[in-house]
């Protein structure tokens, strides 16, 4: 299960991440359309579902799934493009 970590603090977060050493190993995704629900008969609401698999140093795999609206997905995509651009330059 996922344990909540303390609020982002740069130095401490680094220590914790080193201790955890979780590595992203896989990403799976699904693009779907919410058609109907118990509160709205007609929804027509697109969403993106992502599942991330991470491995600890022992090789044990954990997975984390979450959902995003389209604007949230676009924001996420933008973040990752920023990360890639930075990693190109270091």
């Amino acid at each position, binding site marked *: 299960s*996922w344990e*909540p*970590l303390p609020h*982002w603090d*740069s130095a401490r*977060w*680094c220590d*914790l*991440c080193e201790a*955890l*050493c*979780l*590595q*992203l*190993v*896989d*990403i*799976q*995704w699904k*693009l779907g359309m*919410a058609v109907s*629900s*118990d*509160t*709205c*008969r*007609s*929804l027509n*609401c*697109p*969403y*993106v*579902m*992502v599942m*991330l698999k*991470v491995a600890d140093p022992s090789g044990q795999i954990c997975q*984390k*799934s*979450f*959902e*995003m609206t*389209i604007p*949230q*997905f*676009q*924001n*996420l*995509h933008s*973040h*990752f*493009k920023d*990360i*890639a651009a*930075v*990693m190109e330059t*270091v």
Partner: protein
Amino acid sequence: MATVVTAEHFSNLQLLLKAPSKDAVREVCVQSHQGPSRIFTENTAAKFNISPSQAAQLVESLHTLSRHVVFHNLTSPEQILALFPESFHSSLKNLITKILLENSATWRTEALSNQISLPQLKEMDWRVDLVTSSESVSRMAVPTCLLQLKDTRCRHDEAVSTVTMELSRESLDTMLDGLGRIRDQLSVVAGK
């Protein structure tokens, strides 16, 4: 969750004729959509000078009617007016219809926000480091990304779950490839 509005519900709505003002009708319609509460029911009983059980029936009937309007996305006066029995008080019918139309867009937005879903991604923080050495390699320059994702169980949930992970250049490329495919599929769907 009942969305069928019955003759008994409309009969209970006639209790609105005891309202002290149109604003009181508006207030009870809007509050009832959120669902019953003991305090709200007691206040309604006092304000309308009706019994608590009558107030509870009125609130439940308004709740059923407003949920029905949202569920079926009734957006025109004609659609809502058609729900009422022919014998229903004409002015009250028009007032209730007007109030439902005023609020239905907001209620639909709230319903969309409160759908059941997987945890919602709330926040993403990241940092890029340059690994310069390790126990096995004395000198190197390997970029790595530390990524922290926070999500909530649903859009209005305050409890946040956090996961932190490290991404190598390869896993970042895999992530970008996947996100690019999602973006391409969204473009295809949008174009249809």
